[in-house]
């Protein structure tokens, strides 16, 4: 009998421990919300009353350790100037999408967060992400941003803009141009190289181990030591050229696959030819094993490199004579604006405070990342007013050509990447990427790849958000 009692007591104790553990768990995850529920009533008053009760906002973001440092500094500055708001910043270095999906599934979302474009628009359309349209009048700094940077889940309905603006641009090693006696890439979009001029330059800058360039008859493509150009094989590397040649992923309203149009095939074939016909670009496989853009140029593995504006940050640590130019063109000079948005989740209890933080968190006056080259500002004045322009590019990180090759180029020639508008792009993109592997590894020519791709992509097309 006694033994049985011990048994029962132990079992009960164990159950108790388990329940307690479960409760404890619950507590930590819900304190936030229960606190905020309490505060909610108070906050509504703060709108009219100046005496403000403390509010805590959670903010989730990704980025390198370098970015983390800058963001933490921004948070401190924000808390200093907004004593009643406390920001709980959470840096997620790894798989951000997985994390945010899990938080969405368990209803534990942060108030403000970086978010992948696909999810942001999908959740925007489903009302999970805050519609910022009503706040536009209140915050001119939000209303006057580059028109291409708004993520609209329906016409006139926005969930905000990119965290920062970015474009696809071209970097080059000036010394290699001098060495080869080749003219530098243009910085003015209007005088962008034609594809032929670009190819010729790339050939002159591609060298084998005997010093022959790709133009010479004795050129040995098996032993190339310096490539003329490298370009990314994800859409950032080819979508600007599609636009330049008047092509696109789909038809106007996003319902019909169009990557097998003659213009599109031409672009992809010419890109494949850079790798396998003219041997002026490293193949996709070679690129995967190459260092970052700044090191590629510094070590003279490539002379010109197409990459995102964000890569500029890395050049600060690379002592070299580099420059920036505009992309070559097919018909029209074009580049793309891209970058994931920062959003406020509708589940927030403090939309006013969250908005306050939202316009602050990527204000160039508060965040160093703009001056350091990683980010481009969103407000139009930073592209048009001289004082404002100087405030972020007048420093060592930005080369002399930056004003023309990036700022003016963005204003005049940058269009939205497909992730701003095409529905279901998060699912379409991997299909395109997988099929293009055949192109980048020279298994099949562009026409066949793009024709075969139709049956993969067409069923996934659901139109565009702007056509709602």
């Amino acid at each position, binding site marked *: 009998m006694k*033994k049985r009692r011990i048994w029962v007591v132990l079992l009960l104790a164990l159950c108790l421990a388990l329940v307690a553990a479960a409760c404890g768990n619950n507590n930590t995850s819900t304190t936030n919300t229960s606190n905020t529920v309490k505060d909610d009533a108070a906050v509504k008053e703060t709108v009219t009353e100046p005496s403000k009760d403390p509010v805590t906002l959670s903010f989730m973001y990704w980025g390198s350790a370098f970015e983390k440092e800058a963001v933490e500094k921004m948070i401190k500055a924000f808390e200093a100037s907004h004593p009643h708001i406390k920001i709980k910043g959470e840096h997620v270095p790894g798989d951000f999408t*997985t994390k945010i999906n899990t938080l969405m*599934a368990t209803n534990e979302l942060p108030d403000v967060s970086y978010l992948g474009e696909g999810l942001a628009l999908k959740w925007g359309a489903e009302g999970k992400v805050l519609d910022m349209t009503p706040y536009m009048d209140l915050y001119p700094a939000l209303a006057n941003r580059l028109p291409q940077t708004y993520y609209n889940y329906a016409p006139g309905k926005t969930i905000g803009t990119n965290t920062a603006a970015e474009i696809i641009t071209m970097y080059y090693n000036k010394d290699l141009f001098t060495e080869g006696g080749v003219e530098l890439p243009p910085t003015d979009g209007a005088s962008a190289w034609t594809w032929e001029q670009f190819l010729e330059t790339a050939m002159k800058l591609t060298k084998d181990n005997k010093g022959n360039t790709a133009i010479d008859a004795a050129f040995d493509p098996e032993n190339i030591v310096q490539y003329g150009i490298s370009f990314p094989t994800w859409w950032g590397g080819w979508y600007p050229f599609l636009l330049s040649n008047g092509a696109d992923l789909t038809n106007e309203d996003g319902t019909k696959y169009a990557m097998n149009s003659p213009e599109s095939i031409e672009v992809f074939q010419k890109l494949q030819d850079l790798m396998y016909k003219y041997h002026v670009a490293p193949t996709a*496989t070679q690129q995967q*094993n190459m260092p970052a853009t700044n090191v590629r140029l510094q070590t003279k593995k490539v002379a010109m490199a197409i990459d995102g504006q964000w890569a500029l940050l890395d050049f600060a640590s690379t002592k070299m004579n580099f420059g920036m130019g505009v992309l070559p063109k097919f018909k029209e000079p074009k580049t793309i604006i891209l970058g994931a948005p920062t959003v406020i989740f509708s589940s927030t209890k403090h939309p006013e405070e969250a908005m306050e933080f939202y316009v602050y968190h990527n204000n160039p006056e508060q965040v160093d990342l703009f001056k350091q080259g990683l980010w481009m500002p969103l407000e139009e004045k930073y592209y048009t007013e001289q004082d404002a322009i100087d405030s972020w590019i007048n420093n060592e990180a930005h080369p002399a050509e930056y004003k023309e090759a990036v700022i003016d180029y963005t204003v005049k020639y940058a269009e939205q990447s497909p992730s701003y508008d095409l529905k279901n792009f*998060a699912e379409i993109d991997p299909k395109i990427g997988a099929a293009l*592997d*055949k192109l980048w*590894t020279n298994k099949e020519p562009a026409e066949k790849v793009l024709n075969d791709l139709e049956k993969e992509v067409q069923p996934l097309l659901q139109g565009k958000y702007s056509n709602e």
Partner: protein
Amino acid sequence: MNRAMTKLPPGKMRLSGVARMERNWGILFALPAILGFFIFVLGPIIAALVFSLTNWSIGSDMEFIGLDNYRTMVAEDTLFTKSLFVTVYYALGSVPLGIVISFAVAMLLNQKVRGLSIFRTIYYLPVLVPTIANSMLWLWLFNPDFGLLNSILDSAGLPKSQWIYDEGTAIPSLILMSTWGIGNAAVIFLAGLQGVPGHLYEAVEIDGGGALRKFWHVTLPSMTPTIFFNLVMMIIGTLQVFDQAYVMTNGGPNNATLFYIFYLYRKAFTETHMAYASAMAWVLFLIIMALTALVFRSSRFWVYYEGEGRS
């Protein structure tokens, strides 16, 4: 289990005091595992089954759609078929190869040579390396331009390979890589080898049999239970392969390494189709169940337990 059975006189339902105490304490000590199974394994498994019958996508509302997810999988989703093919291809390569190599290594490690414990440590060491580090290491080995493997091929006068960067060679490359992690199986084989009764070898020797006969008539039959165990574990393990695709190839090139679980993960956490991913999980569960059952059923024809006749 066997011990408990011998303590219980057959047919007698009342347990003796000691037996009852042992039973109670036994259950108590196993309780963390039992509760863990019910709460963290069985619960989610059932939840996944329910989700798989809906169209739940994270952040959206849920509706019951019956077996639609399963129908889409079989009838429309070409990547599902592809991922299944890729995974089976990988399993068909890496399981037999893994068994043969780990068995061979175990045989070698069972010899009496100097520095044996060092060899045993070396062969087991890769198991202790985290998969991420392991994958990074192999990325360097596979590097087509300056990787070690191509240097070896080159110096032997053989043509270079693109390894994991080519659609055709990606899976064979990963199979090759999988043989690096055979330490666990080898240790189990080694334990099995040391349990092979010595008198049987003596009997072969007396009858004038050589090493080959010893292996064929004594070692192999005595080892069948161990082979059986390793086979089951490896089948289950390889069908759930994920890390290599996640770390090294991202499923590419052209989905050549789109392993089943990797595709499932992508469906669930990139494309947010939780319901579809749950259905995929159930399909894999059933496939593994069926395969394991098949192996178990076949075992009566080839697995030999000492002290029992072949049944």
